């Protein structure tokens, strides 16, 4: 492999099979280029963060209905999708995303005005998730709530 000066055992003398040489050169370049492409692809695959394991069925048990007081919103810190659970009256519970659709700040619940307000730019949402004022343009995603045997479940 590491020989000293030897007679070149390379390709045929220049000129006689020029096309073949060119073709082989392009082929070699391409092959070597594949290393670069493969390496870049492998690097990209490695550096992309692995998907977070989604919880099964995406149904979150929030707690007991009896523990949710009317008019009080509870923030559920569910992974990257936190949401509010709010009991509007004795029988109705609503759930909506707690992430502002403007710049992704976490919202606060405003008891007096019965809505959600964003501490970053004062964006406001009503209890259906619709933006009322401020920079947010898109409505908050709302989630399906089911109450079974006194337990509250939210499907995010």
């Amino acid at each position, binding site marked *: *492999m*590491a020989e000293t*000066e030897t007679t070149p055992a390379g390709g045929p003398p220049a000129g006689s099979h020029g096309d073949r040489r060119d073709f082989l050169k392009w082929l070699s370049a391409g092959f070597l280029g594949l290393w670069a492409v493969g390496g870049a692809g492998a690097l990209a695959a*490695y550096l992309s963060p*692995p998907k977070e394991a989604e919880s099964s069925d995406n149904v979150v048990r929030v707690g007991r209905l009896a523990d949710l007081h009317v008019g009080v919103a509870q923030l559920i810190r569910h992974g990257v999708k936190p949401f509010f659970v709010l009991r509007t009256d004795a029988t109705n519970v609503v759930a909506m995303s707690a992430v502002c659709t403007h710049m992704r700040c976490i919202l606060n619940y405003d008891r007096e005005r019965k809505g959600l307000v964003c501490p970053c730019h004062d964006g406001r949402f009503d209890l259906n998730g619709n933006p009322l004022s401020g920079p947010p343009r898109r409505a908050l995603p709302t989630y399906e709530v089911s109450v079974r045997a006194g337990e509250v479940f939210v499907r995010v």
Partner: protein
Amino acid sequence: MSASPKPGSKPAVPLSERLWRALAWLEQRMNVTELFSFLTHFGVIYTPIDTQRPLREVLREIGSKPVVSYARWPHILGLLTAILFALQAISGTLLAFYYHPTATMAYESTRTIVRDVPLGWLVHQVHAWGSSLLMAVVFVRIVRLFWDGLYRAPREVLWFSGVMLGYLVIQIDFTGRLLPWDIHSYWAAIRGLEVISTVPVVGPVLAFVVGGKTLSQDSLPRFYVLHSLVLPGLYLAMVWVTFASMRRVGLSRTDEAPPATTTFRKHLADLAIIMLLLFAGLVTLATLFPFHFHGAADPYATPKGVQPPWYMLALYAVDQVPVPGWIPGLLALIVCLAIPFLPAILKRTGGRFDERRVRIAGVAVFAVWVVLSVIGVIVERS
């Protein structure tokens, strides 16, 4: 690939010429050759470079002159040391993208790398196997330098830096082992720290630097910093010293014949082939014989079969002799200090030791070390 323009076509400026012109533009604004010469400090090219000349000229000269071919035995050992270190640095950096150096997250993040990140297992295993290969290569190089008497003037600095590289590699391995924070590495590190602490002066200082003999929450970040910044920095410094010395005293030659030379093209190709085969070998080892790690570390449960790392077994065996702990530690310290300063010691003995005698002494010391390590294993097992 500088293709000459075909006859009859408009004189198009080929890509290579464009690049050279861009380079000239840059050279009017900064000393690019100086930047390039940085490579020579780490041995990619170790011929001296005149940094006042334009880069194009320098490159042309390098490319046209014959190169002493060191991509062959025995110089390949040094080459591999450098290549493997570069591989370790790259794989280590990639691992660091996902690794969390805290006691609570270390194991989980390592497991994420190995199991969930695409090709993470490959990076991890390449790093693990690479470290074993690097240690082997550094060690073999020291043995070969010793055997061929290449510690004598004027190569004392090379011998010193070579031995220091060996010590550094051991320390890098020791600090790196703990990082996965799995049950065996945790306890092996504790055993290792115990063994180290028996060495007078140096031991307690080292234990202090890493945050104490008992591994706590704060030890792991320190191990991490040592492993990824401080020790590799020192290693690079030693590599730099090696090449600085090599530029002065030249590549070693065991006979009087002129050194074998080769063209730059051949040399470059040889380097590329070596790197490729080395990488392929590591990937093979990584796939077929992966290192496994078991369960997260539990400070309250010691598993069976915990040993100090293999390079500490000899000192561990000597520690078992019922004398105060600092005596074997002191012996170990003396031996470890003596080895890099071997040329000075030999000078002191005034030439009584010829090459053959030194070789025999060296083999004897090595044999003692091996026997002690085996004893250490046996003591552990019982």
